[in-house]
């Protein structure tokens, strides 16, 4: 296993960077999209809520692979060729946004109604009240589940391996087919993923416990 780590360190590092890059890009954009969707869902405007609900229900109930393959296989047929990295990351963004929307919506709804009413009665608009009063309180509630979403994102970014996205999993497949030492290669790749995900998962559990008691 150390032999593989030694011989293929540059390939592994490249894969590691791509995995991290794809997950971070997907996190930023799915967070933006997810928060928007959540605000649509609770805005009280029926048309916005319906659009957001359809989005969330749709992407929650289809496999991530289908979304990524759509960008990799279908979209190029209509004149827009996308690389594996771009199609995989786009898939991750759209898919994860639906789950983030649910998390954020639950967080916002957990803030007592009176907070919004009180903020509105002081003359703040809906958006101001949301930004200065409700969202900061919802923040603490949603951080642990959002952290868990980020962990899922890192794990799910392995979907890039299926659309030639050169991520860690993809490099693992190449190394495995070159060395024929499949067992050790995947063990090593698994360890690298765990270095990223396991500490974060323990941190989120700790935060969840700490903030729950306050």
């Amino acid at each position: 296993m150390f032999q593989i780590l030694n011989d293929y360190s540059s390939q592994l590092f490249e894969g590691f960077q791509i995995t991290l890059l794809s997950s971070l890009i997907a996190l930023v954009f799915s967070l933006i999209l997810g928060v928007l969707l959540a605000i649509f869902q609770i805005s009280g405007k029926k048309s916005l809520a319906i659009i957001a609900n359809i989005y969330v229900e749709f992407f929650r109930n289809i496999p991530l692979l289908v979304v990524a393959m759509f960008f990799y296989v279908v979209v190029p047929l209509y004149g827009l060729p996308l690389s594996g990295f771009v199609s995989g990351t786009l898939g991750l963004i759209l898919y994860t946004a639906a789950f983030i929307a649910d998390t954020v919506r639950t967080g916002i709804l957990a803030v007592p109604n009176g907070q919004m009413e009180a903020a509105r009665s002081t003359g703040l608009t809906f958006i101001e009240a949301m930004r200065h009063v409700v969202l900061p309180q919802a923040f603490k509630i949603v951080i642990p589940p959002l952290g868990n979403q980020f962990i899922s994102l890192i794990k799910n970014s392995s979907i890039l391996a299926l659309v030639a996205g050169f991520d860690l999993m993809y490099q693992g497949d190449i190394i495995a087919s070159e060395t024929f030492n499949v067992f050790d290669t995947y063990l090593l790749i698994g360890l690298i993923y765990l270095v990223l995900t396991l500490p974060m998962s323990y941190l989120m559990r700790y935060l969840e416990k700490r903030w729950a008691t306050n």
Partner: protein
Amino acid sequence: MEHFIDAYTWINIRFLLAGLLVTLQVSVLAIIFSFIIGGILGIIRYVKIPVLSSVIGFLIDVIRNLPLILIIFFTYFGLPNIGIRFNIFWSAVAAMTVFQSAMLAEVIRGGIVAVPKGQMEAARSTGLTYIQAMRLIILPQALKKMIPAIVAQFISLVKDTSLATVIVLPDLTYSARIIYSQDSNAVLPMFFMMTLLYFLICFCLSRLSISLDHRLS
């Protein structure tokens, strides 16, 4: 638009449905096995046997934090290196079972923890042994609480089975790919039908989960 309808020949539809059947077979087998294994692991975690419970807890954390694709690859390509060999279908079932057992163990432990402590104390004070109290009083109540979560896990199983296309499991995703790789006019219609089938199954299951949640609480 003409091509769109043309792609839905009876042969293609039947091929897709055969793929869907494989998807469902793998998911159903995996959920049954992982319910049994996850149940045992969850109970061991709950009763806090020294060393064993923490070791199992750590293993569960490790599996939960690995990408499922890696587990699938490992099961099919890695395990033969140490002499364990499954065919494609059972590799998919085994990989899904390992991953879902870890997920369900936490669900089941959470379900047991959610049963009020007084239930166990009351059951013990009527003269039941610990195991009897667990079996007759605690577990039935816990099961009721965790049914919606188990249905949710089943939905992820149906979706995640698509990842087993990497080891050429002839599931719904793979069947669609076989059809559209032979005819570029079939790409969009096959994607549409595949998405629709996944959506219908998962959406109905999630509605079921919500209505069960309402009825049981």
